[in-house]
């Protein structure tokens, strides 16, 4: 199980991207803002829960600003934010 130890971000607010912010929390809290929330909000939340589960994250506050990102983009941004917040590494570290 991975633990979120600090606040971290990944992605951008540009079209086709998503901006993801993650921070330590006692429970799992997901805050989603999406340009396609009405149509795909449930699908996006399911994807977020799956990626967090695969990353071993059980508690965190995750805020996602979705700008029409494809699943493959959103998944990469969440994994990057988790990696930056859980490992104690700096942005862009080699390993």
């Amino acid at each position, binding site marked *: 199980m991975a633990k979120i130890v600090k606040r971290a971000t990944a992605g951008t607010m540009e079209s086709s991207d998503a901006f993801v912010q993650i921070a330590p929390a006692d429970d799992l809290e997901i805050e989603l803002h999406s340009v396609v929330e009405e149509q*795909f909000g449930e699908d996006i939340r399911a994807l977020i829960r799956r990626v967090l589960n695969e990353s071993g994250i059980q508690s965190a506050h995750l805020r996602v600003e979705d700008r029409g990102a494809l699943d493959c983009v959103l998944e990469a941004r969440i994994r990057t934010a988790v990696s930056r917040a859980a490992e104690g590494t700096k942005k862009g570290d080699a390993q």
Partner: protein
Amino acid sequence: MIRSLLFIPGNSPSLLVGGGFLGADALILDLEDAVAPAEKDAARLLVQNAVRWFKRFPVRTIVRVNALDTPYFRADIQTVLPAEPDMIMLPKSGTRSDIEQALSVMSVTGNEKTALFPLVETALGIENAYSIAASSPRVYGLLLGAEDLTRDLHTKRTGEGAEIAYARGRIVCAARAAGKEVYDTPFTDVNDDAGILADTETAKSFGFTGKASISPRHIDPINRIFSPSPAEIREAQDIVRAAKEAEKEGRGVIALNGKMIDAPVLARAEQVLASISAPTPVAASITTDKADKKENEERSDKEVSDER
């Protein structure tokens, strides 16, 4: 056959997701120069997912990783190789040893399918081009990188390209001697329409297999110039047919329209026909999923607002 290779920045979702629709035979997803050091980790994960996304398109995926002597190389390979891109492009390939080191790191991932595509962009690399190309069966071919090369040569790029004439000739000869494909450097002035045509014709006359590009606008001229014309295809078909008839009739000499066809002419005709039998990328029919729905939604929203 791959004719056109299009560079796409590795950390730009808007450019990445549209890459499969641009008509390029292969996409070079760039983790090197196009990505800032602070975003290397994000780009790696994005490119890993993008490689999987592109498997639904008839386009080859090539990932340009960071050079061997950077702190990013190993992490690039370890993150990207499990997604099985068609090739890894190794920048600043200068010696046979560079290729062996890269293949050694790649082998640790257990991926035995992904080929290696050395980017030759230094004076040392040009001089060692044959040993680089012949260093392993896993080397697909060579790409000439003229921007870094001209810096190394203490000169600068020109539209005419006289400063890279030696490098072009040498890299083509080296790759062909090793039995490998070889690709020309991008033409970097994206607004010079006559320039891209002239530069691509020059590349073809040198014997390159195709050409890289940094602009989607250059894909069509590259594909066109590196494809045989209808007249060339007809001539090649006639030559091959004449050769088959001569063989069937036990004649040692092949003649077509009163002219003798010798072995190199027949071999060239067979190359032309082989190049058109390779699959040509076309827009794929993609299964409808959430991603496509999103795209359609956005498109229809835009169309509605345009109509207003």
